[in-house]
Each structure stands twice: as C-alpha cells, then as structure tokens.
C-alpha cells in the first residue's frame, strides 16, 4: 500500500442523474482501497447520495421484481466504503451541506454522515494533501 494521504472531494450532483455521481463513487472506492483518508463535502443535490430512505424497486417494464432488478443504491455503496475505511483504520468523513439538506428535506442520512457548512469544506481542504472539486455544468 502506498503512503496514506488525506484526499478531499466536493460534489454537487444528485444520484441517478449524471455520470459525475458515478465517477465520484468510483474515485472514493479507489481512494479507500488504496488506504487513503477520504473527506467528502456534498452540497446541492449531492446530499441525496447518502439519503437513508433510498430503496430498491422492481422493474415492471422488464418483468423483474426488486430482487431480480438488483437496484444499486448509492447509500449502500457509501456505507460499504465507510465500513471498509473503518476496517482499514483510515478515515472516511462525509459532510452534507446543512442548508442544502433543509431545502430538500434530505435530513435522513445513513449513519456516519455529518451535517455541516462550506466552512467544513474549507477546513477539509486545508487539512488535506489534495482536493478535487467535481463541478457541475
């Protein structure tokens, strides 16, 4: 394993709508697997990425029930990455922008997600080895 670094990511895209959300989750997974500490600051629609009430659904158009559909839930991927980081002894800190949460009623996040503000992003970036802002269009 390479030397542990602390990497921060800022993202504003919601789940299921843009490829940016998928790319973010792929980046986080790689960072965790490589033993780095990870910070995420989610704002705007991205606060729905760890939304606890996401649930799998059937796909009547294809005649599949919920189990057969195997719907992928971002909240489960994030929870798995948090668990992997904990097992590895590294840090995985996810902060949801509080005002963005309130605007959207997205206050039911999975365990481990903190409520914060852009000041947290500044602090994360200052304390990180590197920061990537995944801006929307």
């Amino acid at each position, binding site marked *: 394993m*390479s030397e542990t670094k602390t*990497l921060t990511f800022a993202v504003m895209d919601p789940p299921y709508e843009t490829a940016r959300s998928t790319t973010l989750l792929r980046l986080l997974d790689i960072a965790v697997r*490589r033993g780095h500490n990870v910070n995420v600051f989610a704002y705007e629609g991205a606060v729905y990425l760890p939304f606890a009430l996401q649930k799998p659904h059937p796909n009547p158009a294809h005649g599949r029930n919920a189990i057969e559909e195997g719907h992928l839930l971002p909240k489960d991927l994030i929870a798995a990455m948090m668990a992997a980081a904990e097992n590895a002894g590294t840090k995985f800190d996810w902060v949801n922008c509080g005002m963005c949460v309130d605007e959207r009623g997205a206050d039911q996040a999975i365990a481990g997600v903190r409520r914060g503000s852009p000041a947290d992003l500044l602090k994360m970036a200052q304390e990180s080895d*590197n920061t990537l*802002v995944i*801006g929307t*269009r």
Partner: protein
Amino acid sequence: MSRYLLIESRDPFDSPDTSFIQNLSRELMQGGHEVTVFLVQNGVLPARPCVHSAALTSLAQAGVTILADDFSLRERGIAPDVLVQGVRAAALDVVIDAMAGGAKTIWH
C-alpha cells in the same frame, strides 16, 4: 515545475468549451510544467477517430500525456485499440495516484 492532472468529462460534440482544457494544457506545458489530461465519461468520445480527435493528437505531440478512462471507454463500446494516436486507455486509479502524489488536479 508542477504536475497537473486535468480531467475532461465533457465531449466536444455537446460542449463548446472543451478547448479550455486543451488551451490550458498547452500554456502549462509552455510554462515548463508536466501535464496529463485524463478523459472520462463522455470526455472519451473524441479519443476515437472523429472530427475532433486531431486536437488530442496535436496535444499529445506537444508533450501532454493523454489518458482515457478504460471504464468510460467500455461503457461506450470504444475498444482501446481504436484510440487515436497519442491517447491510451488507463484506469481511474491514475486520478487518485496523482492526487496522492501532489499533482494539481482540475475537473472540467
């Protein structure tokens, strides 16, 4: 000299501003910096032979390393062996390694 990783997620068929990364890359190279452009998502589309691929080849000839996310290529049915000259497929791990290595990383 600094190392830069410029991530291009936009494709020139849909976005009129992909020249931003190309121009920035050239200017950074001219400034003596080491530059890698990483194409991801629809940003990989000009990596297959098309009207926009000459710009990538030109950039590579200027000394910029140009990589295309292998997952994004597979999603779009683009085989690594059809990529235009100067572009090669790479895993997304490149981004994390560059960040961990201290490269200045910019998303577009």
